[in-house]
């Protein structure tokens, strides 16, 4: 075989491999285009390409209405508020659990882990009713308090805190799992070395652990933020009548107000907010890859 033939053979083999690779990713890519990109594009177009007179024309009137309508803006605001508060609470709850699971030894952490993962297997509508029966009015907490002659709690049911409590609990498993995988990358020797030179637990956490799991925190937050922003069942059942979160608001606008244009506009705006969080995720994944490649 001449050198030339050898090169062309290698080239053909490489081309075959890349064709196969493309074929393998074709199914998910086509699905993405069909079920994600196309609906987004069609929503975007149908919310700005509006009927006017005989034909259609480019118009932003639906968006102008949303951003000048106090009621709609309040709904967007409460959704952002719920998202931020829930994300902060999630981190505050999940980080200690994850650190405990990473460094504790023995049988107990296994039970703690299964407890932390448990919410993943509970449908949110069941969770919603469970929250009502526990912290709802005259629920389990009130019954316990009453038995020791303490006043009842101010129930979060039908207030903005209802969905916050439900969503936090609902998102614990995914957050704990992602943080745990990030903590798995921390080498025991570096922690031991810091302890040897006399670092207290807080200093170990601040100087050794935190810098190494920043990426995992970003990933965990962007995942849970997307889930919280688009939540429907928990705000629907536990939240106040108004302001509504974007999920129930969109559904009500579409079904009850029978206004597909306004619902589409709300969906595009919700998507635009979510894409910001999505960019954080993509950026931290890309940064991670850079670091790994280096």
């Amino acid at each position, binding site marked *: 075989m001449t050198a030339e033939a050898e090169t062309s053979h290698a080239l053909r083999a490489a081309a075959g491999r890349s064709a196969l690779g493309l074929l393998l990713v074709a199914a998910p890519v086509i699905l993405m285009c069909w079920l994600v990109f196309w609906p987004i594009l069609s929503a975007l177009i149908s919310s700005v390409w509006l009927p006017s007179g005989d034909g259609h024309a480019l118009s932003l009137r639906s968006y102008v209405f949303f951003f000048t309508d106090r009621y709609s803006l309040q709904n967007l605001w409460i959704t952002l508020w719920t998202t931020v508060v829930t994300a902060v609470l999630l981190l505050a709850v999940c980080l200690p659990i994850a650190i405990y699971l990473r460094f504790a030894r023995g049988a107990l952490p296994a039970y703690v882990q299964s407890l932390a993962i448990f919410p993943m297997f509970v449908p949110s509508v069941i969770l919603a009713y469970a929250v009502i029966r526990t912290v*709802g009015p*005259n629920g389990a907490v009130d019954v316990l308090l009453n038995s020791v002659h303490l006043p009842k709690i101010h129930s979060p049911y*039908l207030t903005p805190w209802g969905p916050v409590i439900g969503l936090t609990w609902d998102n614990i498993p995914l957050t704990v799992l992602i943080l745990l995988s990030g903590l798995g990358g921390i080498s025991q020797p570096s922690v031991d070395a810091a302890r040897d030179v006399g670092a207290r637990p807080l200093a170990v956490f601040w100087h050794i652990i935190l810098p190494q799991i920043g990426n995992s925190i970003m990933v965990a937050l962007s995942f849970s933020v997307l889930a919280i922003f688009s939540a429907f069942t928990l705000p629907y059942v536990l939240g106040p*009548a108004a302001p509504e979160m974007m999920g129930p608001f969109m559904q*009500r606008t579409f079904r009850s107000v*029978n206004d597909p244009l306004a619902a589409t506009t709300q969906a595009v705006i919700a998507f635009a907010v979510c894409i910001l969080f999505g960019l954080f995720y993509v950026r931290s994944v890309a940064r991670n890859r850079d670091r790994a490649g280096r």
Partner: protein
Amino acid sequence: MNRRDFLMLGAAAGGLVLTSRLATAAPNVIDVYYGGDDNIADFWANTVRPGFHKAYPDLDINWVNAADVDGMYAIADRAFAAFKTHTDPQADLFEEFDTNLPKGALEAGLWTDFSKANLTNYPRLNPLGIRNGFGLPYRASQVVIAYDTTKLSPDKAPKTWDALVAWIKANPGQFIYNRPDKGGSGGFFVRRAIHQANGLDPSKFTLDNYSDAYAAESLGKAWAILNDIAPSLYQGGAYTSGNTQSIQLLGQSVVTMVPVWSDQVLQAIDQGVLPSTTGLVQLTDLAICGDFVRMAIPTNAANHDAALKLVDYVLSDEIQTAILTDLGGFPGISWQYFPDDLRKKFADVVPTSMPTFPGGPWEQAVNDGWYRNVAPNIAR
């Protein structure tokens, strides 16, 4: 045949069976969709279906649960899509549906006009129930006020709107109603406030007299009434997200009084969800609205004629009497067609008049108007 061929053949055969099942509705089996409560499902399974099968031995009913109203919308959307492509909607009858939806379907001709379908029982329908010819009112129920008799003795229960408002204000935190679009009990409580604000005259609101200006004027006065009682409601203006949640709060003894559906509350007391000490009262100055449940048939239904036979049967004396005696609901045909003994027996239960409120554009104006004008006013 090797294993791979066998698997492929099996998959192909399975797919063929599936597609043939999905593609066409079975002949002479009427696909009835419903999205209501279990008592309705029981009624159809135990009373309507055996009776209908006896009357028409070659026809049968396939009872399909669409879970809820949204499920029914999805089936109607599918029927409308099938209508546009001239295919089989695989749905012959909607047990309860508002034929003003999906948008544009009525104008396009999706729904059957019962007034022109030559049903023998159509002329016997209660005129109160007829909105347009496209929905066939076959049963009805009404919203009443349920209260805890251990906290409020029946002789002190409010029987007029003014007395009710006075009671709510005198007992802050003890009354709640649900969001008007999330369940009829709160929805009709809100509409009762609209009647109150407009001279107690239900005839002022019809399907055809809607205009934005009229709605703004007539509904605005009702928002003032509802905002006036809002600070005295549970949590200073909270609203439950459905009929069941209101009953739950009454059952947990959190509030003393809630508006409820008549048939739903009787069932809840029967099942022990609400204690037997639950009292019921209807306002006497003008009753709270009730509504008729209207059936609908897509014009492109594969078993269209059979579905018409079925709805005519449902309007027969046999089923209409059973609705009254077995279901605890109100019949769809006029009161005069019932025998004297039944009329006497249910005289106190069945009102001679049932105020109704039109749907269509009013539905959106009332529900969205409430969200924008009443719901945000919360004293927290």
